[in-house]
């Protein structure tokens, strides 16, 4: 396995047309390695989320190339791209996007079910991931009955369930109070980041910068600190 998890080269993304046309991401290039917790930070509107969407195979760039584990992401066709996201990437959304009408363990089992695993087997395996995030006792509750921190952990368990090489965290502390946010990020760094996994976190919460291995600063769609980024 190569040491480089993500290689982004010259990524550019435009939105709008005519006079309203603006560049959200401009010629961004960087690399992320396995066993690295990479932060992309910057003010609102700096292009962090757009960059995150491009590298995770959700938003097609206008220019440039992204490789995840040597797979040219945007060369993949639609179904292959969906499979790529399902098998290689674990998403933890800012608002968690848990299904309130499913139990906690069923929420975690979703990626496994999408991989066409048997239902009972999926639930059984999902329970293990819930155990990893310390919520096995809450397996059969609706996510609406969990606290914000617990919901975040469920979202992490769901992301882990697909067995991803790359985990994407979008503003992981935005919906949490300061202490809970720190505990979550600490837990992620300690228990989730492995030798075969790269974690990319988009945030503008400077209270959790200490947990980053490397930080990329973005402003106006550009990386401020060049290709490599600054070591935290």
């Amino acid at each position, binding site marked *: 396995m190569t040491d480089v998890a993500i290689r982004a080269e010259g990524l550019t993304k435009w939105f709008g047309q005519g006079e309203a046309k603006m560049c959200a991401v401009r010629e961004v290039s960087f690399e992320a390695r396995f066993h690295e917790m990479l932060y992309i930070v910057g003010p609102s509107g700096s292009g962090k*989320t*757009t960059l*995150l*969407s491009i590298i*995770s195979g*959700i*938003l097609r760039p206008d220019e440039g190339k992204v490789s995840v584990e040597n797979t040219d992401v945007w060369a993949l066709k*639609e*179904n292959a791209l*969906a*499979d*790529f*996201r*399902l*098998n290689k*990437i674990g*998403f933890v*959304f*800012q*608002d968690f*996007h848990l*299904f309130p*009408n*499913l139990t906690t363990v*069923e929420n975690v089992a*979703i*990626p496994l*079910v*999408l991989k*066409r*695993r*048997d*239902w009972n087997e*999926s639930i059984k395996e999902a329970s293990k991931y819930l155990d990893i995030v310390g919520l096995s006792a809450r397996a059969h509750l609706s996510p609406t009955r969990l606290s914000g921190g617990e919901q975040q952990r469920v979202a992490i368990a*769901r992301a882990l369930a*697909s067995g991803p090489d790359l985990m994407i965290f*979008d503003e992981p502390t935005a919906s949490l109070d300061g202490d809970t946010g720190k505990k979550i990020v600490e837990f992620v760094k300690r228990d989730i980041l492995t030798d075969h996994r790269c974690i990319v976190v988009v945030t503008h919460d400077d209270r959790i910068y200490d947990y980053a291995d490397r930080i990329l600063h973005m402003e106006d769609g550009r990386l401020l600190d060049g290709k490599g980024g600054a070591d935290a």
Partner: protein
Amino acid sequence: MLGILRIAYKLLVNDKGKFAALLMGLTFSVFLMIQMTSMFAGMMKKASATVTNTGAKVWVMDRAVTNVSSAIPMPDYVLDAVRSIDGVKYAVPLYSGAGLVHLADGTYQPVTVLGLDDTSLFGRPALIEGNITDIFAENGFIVVKDAEFPKLNNPKLGTEFELNDNRGVIVGIATVPASGLFGIPTLYTTYSRAIQYIPSMRYTISFILIEPQNNAAIPHIQEEIAHLGYETVTEQGFIDKITSWYMFRTGMGINLLLMTAISFVVGLSISGQTFYTFVLENLGKFGALKAIGAKGHELVAMIFFQAGVTGLAGYGLGIGLCAGLIALARLRMPDYASIVTYGNLLLALGMVLVISAFSGYIAVRKVLRIDPYDIFRG
């Protein structure tokens, strides 16, 4: 795929408020659709009661006849001519007319009088009391024991009455598969007595009933009788003719069709709108699924499965509600004209599937358009 559908099912049924609203809309719609078409089917069955009760394979009548109660009498020579056609095993006359019974308590009650061929009594009903040969006794009548029977004050064997100022005696009590549409009792007697008791014009044969030698002979018989200027139809053909008349010439069919169409539109709009709202509320979740790696066809399958489950559940509940209400109505009105036929059920199923497909389609369009990037943007 089963696991994905299981998720879709749980997302649907665990949203109890929306699911209940969806079910209510569909149940109400299916109930109305089945109720309307069942009423029509029930009325048509009753309108064709004489045809089905008589059991003749082939019927001859004046071309202007539209239903059993509007018989136009034919001259006797037509019967002779029919009997002489190749392929006719036998042919008998049937009288069908209306009379007025004067009951012992002094009240009057309109009745349908059917006069059976004196020789064969072809088309006679099944007796539950009395002996069929007693119909030949003086003033002998057989009364049909159906929902209208009490209107004759529940007559017994030997009960006397007056029919158009002639004495009548009940000599038998019979049962028939279907009773008539207009809610009046039915009396059977012999053809000769019927034309004697009921005032009529010069011609007296309402219908000629034919037993063909075989079914292959029917077209030839129809052709020969057409040369005489009369119409020949099979039993089913006559039922279809009656149904067609009620459907297209009385306004009844159009009204019921309109009600059925309105029920369909009500179901379509309620369930379409509710399902669309349900999907809109879950749009973020569908977007998250798409981001995680669900493929377009899997989301389409989920939505159509949800629409299908809702449709079929509403269909079942609608049928149950309709059947329950018909049963309830029959407790008070035993002759309530409403029957749920396989045709009604298939029609309603077809309409429910259209409603489900439409609801699913508008929802799918929305879900397929959602960009997972919107999930990141919040």
